């Protein structure tokens, strides 16, 4: 049962790191990285819960593992959308800052594009 404990704590620490990275770092790409870390921490926790539920000949409870596979695909499509949105924002305004006024003063093309 040791890996449940070890990887459970590892999942919680990675989730904490992801939360910290997503909130503190002003760069949106680092926020997306933080979100991915947080997501993998939560999915790791799903894996630990599945491992605890190992029974009937399976090394792990299949239901949370199936949820993780669905979750990873959803998290990847979220990352792809966020990265493309960030790149488009950077191309349009030349700045990738989320600060309130950043878009306005950094805007290259006029508002009536």
């Amino acid at each position, binding site marked *: 049962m040791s890996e449940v404990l070890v990887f459970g704590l590892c999942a919680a620490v990675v989730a904490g790191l992801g939360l910290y990275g997503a909130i503190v770092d002003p760069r949106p790409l680092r926020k997306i990285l933080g979100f991915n870390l947080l997501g993998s921490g939560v999915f790791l*926790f799903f894996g630990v819960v599945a491992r605890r539920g190992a029974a009937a000949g399976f090394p792990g409870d299949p239901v949370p593992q199936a949820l993780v596979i669905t979750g990873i695909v959803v998290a990847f499509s979220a990352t792809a959308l966020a990265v493309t949105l960030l790149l488009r924002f950077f191309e349009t305004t030349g700045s990738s800052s989320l600060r309130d006024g950043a878009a306005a003063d950094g805007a290259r093309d006029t508002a009536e594009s």
Partner: protein
Amino acid sequence: MTIVPALDLFVAGVVLVVAVWTVAVRNTSSAVVGFVAYGLLLALVWVRLGAPDVALTEAAIGSGLTGALLIGAAARLRAGESTVAAERPGVPVRLLIAALATVVAAAIAGVLLSLPDPAPTLAPEATANAGATGLGNPITNVLMAFRAMDTMLEKVVLLLAVLGIWSLSPDAAWGGRPHLPHRAEPDAALEFLARVLTPVGVVLGIAVLWVSADHPGGAFQGATILAAMWLLVLMAGLGEVPDIGRRRLRLALVVGPAVFLTIGLGGLVVSGAFLSYPQGFAKPLILAIEFAMILTVATTLGLLVAGPPVAGPPAAGSAAAGSPARRAAP
């Protein structure tokens, strides 16, 4: 034996070191490289947790495709990096956030210790009902039969992500093609890699799907490998992404959820419940859905990494040059 816990501790330790590195390092490109290393190492953790299916998914989607996506973005954002990095909050705010994040993580870890000892599990129920679909792999059973609704909705999410990315293109570029910028003079090593690796990848992708009936594998994992191979071909310049207006591409993107929906509605009529399979026909129907799914998901994941259309639509009627090399997607 006491040695195994040490092994787990060590694997977890390496994973944590790389995770801390990914958050702490200054330069974004090395943070992305750290994240790719983290993703690949996570596959080790998933194997230790007895979930090879998820290890496949994590290694393929978590680090392979996400890594390719993020490294491209990191390179293009390097110009604006310094101005934004300056907006870093002050030390007190950072300490407060660190403390709060620690409390949340500690709460989650604390709950782990308090979870009930005979852990509640659905494994026995999953095996008891596995007879209905005749599939050996319990996770495929859960994904395709017991919780088929989540899998079908998830394909809608993928389609939405592609639509969201396409809608971010400039108006003039609509109908054009998203192209990975391959350079004028082809790079011999990359082209060789693409020519040799792609067939191996396609065979492996289809095998991972075919095996998924009874052994770890699945349509998503297979689709990710096919998408990676398609992207490798595009990177090597051996193929072009088809224009987003082409009917075949649109159908390829929709065929997965569409087949899932029609078979689900068929189940409503024939065997009494939406997304249920008539007795005895479950396995062939599930495989049919999975083949439609692998085609859609491979195309979708490839397009998600390729990005929004950039070049304008082709002159009317000009055939798309260099139809993509051998791969499942049209």
